[in-house]
């Protein structure tokens, strides 16, 4: 799976599950500051990514995710390993 597919899926989840405006999405968009996603929302998003991509994101790594781009990077990394 290539990066753009992961990005596309992540954007769909953000729009469908968290009700975010598709126009607001950008690689460097910060979940909490720019997209108004609360910390629980980020947890839910990462859980949805785990389910959708069949990967496991340990707590310590999940804590580091603050932007859309970082979430895509992490999923890409997990899929590759």
């Amino acid at each position: 799976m290539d990066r753009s597919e992961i990005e596309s899926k992540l954007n769909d989840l953000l729009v469908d599950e968290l009700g975010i405006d598709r126009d607001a999405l950008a690689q460097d968009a910060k979940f909490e500051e720019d997209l108004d996603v609360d910390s629980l929302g980020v947890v839910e998003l990462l859980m949805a990514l785990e389910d959708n991509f069949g990967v496991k994101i340990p707590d310590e790594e999940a804590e580091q995710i603050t932007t859309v781009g970082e979430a895509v990077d992490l999923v890409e990394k997990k899929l590759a390993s």
Partner: protein
Amino acid sequence: MSRVALVTGGSRGIGRAVAELLATQGHRVAVNYTANEAAADAAVEAIAAAGGSAIAVQADVGDADSVTAMFAVVGERLGSVEILVNNAGITRDALVLRMGVEAWDEVIETNLRSVYLTSKAALRGMLRARWGRIVSISSVSGIAGNPGQANYAASKAGIIGFTKSVAREVGSRGITVNAVAPGFIETDMTDALGDEITTAASERIALGRLGQPEEVAAAVGYLASDDASYVTGHTLVVDGGIAL
């Protein structure tokens, strides 16, 4: 509405009464036990005989891997846990000056660490479903203190702080997190105290007697129901009026 419920320490005492009550309310109940398989099977049979649905599932609730495995089993056999009752608890009484580190650790692990491990595991599914009930059994010991039970009281007071914090974390997703604080209830745990202590206790209890497991189960049943949809972060005391 029939939901999937998990009761830790559900084979005896308060846990068994809770499991039986939830089953009569139509829920599918997973009865967790740690060592007493016979008691767990007896509880499951009693529930089935009364027309309910239950399974027995072994786990050491203070152990992370064991809890993960238990949730996998319950997930496969019954579905995602919607009602979690954290009832498993032990005592290792001693004056603090005579309390060994093992006695401290064991009680904190079985009584409090377990609540964190099971809640974390259950919240995954509850968040997805945007519905959940977590009810943990605290104790009046945790609220008022009890000589000889610094470890037990600390674990039970810890449950109250945990309950309030998690209630604030997940409330926006339709999940309530509450605790029930029983007083002296007639179970194996209080039988072990002996007549002298329980008689002395009765004199301090407004209702003048020990409580029955069913009387605590009724409180858990309420908090697990839709009737308690606006109650969260709360500790419901069921003590016959001892810690007034």
